[in-house]
């Protein structure tokens, strides 16, 4: 397939057509079109490089001023111009981790339900509904969290949780403090709801790459549904599931609007999940348009640059894994 492709497109077609009338015009149009296409590709590449370069340049004053301490100090003081992003980094990691903790098992559960248990008639409508939900803008989840979930949580659930865990060592620290409604815990939960459809739809797609023959063979040996999934489907799709989860993690790390509404924007790390906190993206969204002073802006840019780097690494790993799955299933089909 590869060689036929190259011979039709790469070279040679323009040559003979020179001899016919209007051939020269066609030939130059041909070259122009190819150049345009290459130009667009290079432009996309340059955009990416520029993004990297421009952000780094903007971040440099802060990185230069504070050095490595920038990543390890909790102080965020615009008045004295002392900045460190330990609290936002911590908030980003904690909220993403908690969201993944809730959304990955639920998402896999939904995918299993869709591929194995759901009545055939409902399979397509529910599948489509989940894909559509994955496309709903995050600001919708944010506004719901702020107006509906946070007040309800504050009034009905949070005081109860605080009471129950008050005497349990360890947990009392995690669930301490006044019930604000908003905070790290609420943000994680909204984030989990937001990435759930994404995980569910990727995992379902991955599950569907399992050749029916493998599953039928296992059923034929007398396996239960659980055994088929645990021993056949999941081992076969392991890299795909992990890749899908990484993709969702990349999304969660950089998610802004769903979190900004409900996290409370406090630049400190607290042991209590009910305390307000912040994440890199929430800090940028909340403060950037009000930031005065070059160092303040540069610090926010440096935070954004750091976010770019970590999501880049996570997403690149996700691509690698999903691509490996593509290759392996391609091999099995052949």
């Amino acid at each position, binding site marked *: 397939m590869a060689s036929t492709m190259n011979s039709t497109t790469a070279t040679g077609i323009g040559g*003979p057509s020179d001899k016919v009338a209007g051939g020269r015009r066609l030939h130059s149009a041909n070259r122009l079109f190819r150049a345009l296409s290459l130009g667009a590709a290079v432009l996309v590449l340059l955009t990416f490089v520029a993004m990297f370069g421009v952000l780094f340049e903007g971040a440099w004053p802060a990185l230069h001023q504070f050095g490595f301490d920038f990543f390890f100090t909790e102080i965020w003081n615009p008045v004295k111009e002392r900045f460190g992003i330990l609290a936002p980094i911590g908030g980003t990691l904690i909220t993403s981790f908690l969201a993944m903790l809730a959304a990955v098992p639920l998402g896999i559960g*939904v995918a299993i339900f869709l591929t194995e248990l759901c009545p055939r008639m409902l399979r397509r409508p529910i599948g489509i509904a989940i894909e559509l939900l994955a496309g709903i803008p995050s600001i919708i989840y944010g506004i719901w969290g702020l107006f509906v979930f946070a007040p309800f949580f504050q009034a009905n659930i949070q005081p109860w949780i605080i009471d129950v865990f008050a005497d349990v060592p360890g947990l009392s620290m995690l669930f301490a403090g006044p019930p604000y409604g908003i905070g790290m815990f609420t943000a994680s939960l909204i984030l989990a709801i937001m990435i759930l459809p994404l995980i569910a739809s990727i995992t379902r797609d991955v599950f569907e790459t399992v050749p029916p023959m493998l599953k039928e063979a296992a059923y034929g040996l007398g396996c239960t549904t659980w055994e088929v999934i645990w021993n056949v489907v999941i081992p076969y799709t392991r890299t795909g599931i992990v890749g899908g989860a990484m993709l969702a993690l990349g999304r969660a790390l950089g998610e802004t609007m769903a979190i900004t509404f409900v996290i409370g924007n406090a630049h400190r790390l607290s042991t209590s999940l009910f305390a307000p906190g912040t994440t890199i993206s929430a800090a940028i969204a909340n403060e950037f348009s009000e930031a005065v002073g070059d160092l303040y802006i540069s610090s926010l840019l440096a935070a954004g640059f750091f976010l770019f780097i970590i*999501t880049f690494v996570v997403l690149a790993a996700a691509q690698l894994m999903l691509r490996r799955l593509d290759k392996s299933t391609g091999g099995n089909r052949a």
Partner: protein
Amino acid sequence: MTQASSLYTGRRLRNQAFKLLSIIAALIGIGWLVLILSTLLINGIAAIKPSLFFEITPPPGEMGGLANAIVGSLIMVVLAVIVGTPIGIMTGTYLAEYGRHTKLAYILRSLNDILLSAPSIVIGLFIYTALVMSTGHFSAYAGIVSLAVIVIPVVVRTTENMLLLVPNSLREAAAALGAPSAYVIRHVTWKSARAGIITGVLLAVARISGETAPLLFTSLNNSFWSLDLSEPMASLPVVIFQFAMSPYEAWHELAWGGALIITVAVLGVSILARLLGAERK
């Protein structure tokens, strides 16, 4: 015998428990999303009035609408798609037709997939530093460029995928008749992949319609009518953000109304894209 039957019951029980768990997961997952959409619908419909579409955003404490934000969003989304789509389609064409196995294509494909899920707030920061800082003021232009940067990877990915679905025999047949490669691409491969490419563009529209983070510090916001692209421009998502975070009841209502409009628009466009995609098959 008893050992065998207890083994069997154990397996059956485990299977039942597992089925139950996965049904519960599905119920929680889907139920929660239904809950969100229904509250959105209830609160949003209460806010939908004629004034929402005909009056501009009010100062605190007064009544008004979202007309300037709706128009601003439409302008920026449409222009971003006009800017981003040709670049995206040409890049996708390069990946699928010209450079399929080149090193450049490999790198580009990986970077494009990363750009596809890169945090949109980082794209906003990039455009802020590149355009707003250098020109010294916020503008709708900057907002359009940052949305276009989000459109491009979506269009690149779908265009490439759709072009790869076109059978090589079609290309070969056209080339055998003497058509130059550019002619083959424009009149044969693009044509047969057209529905798919349009689907990609629609998906990109759905994607940017609700984007807030990249607009926060590029197009900013504007409480007045403004069609001047070199001035800050209101957009639905940014207005929703500002109004929802405010303490004013009237602004909250407008935020709900705006949220409903965006959701309906995004779902409508995605469903349209899906119908088009299904037609192809």
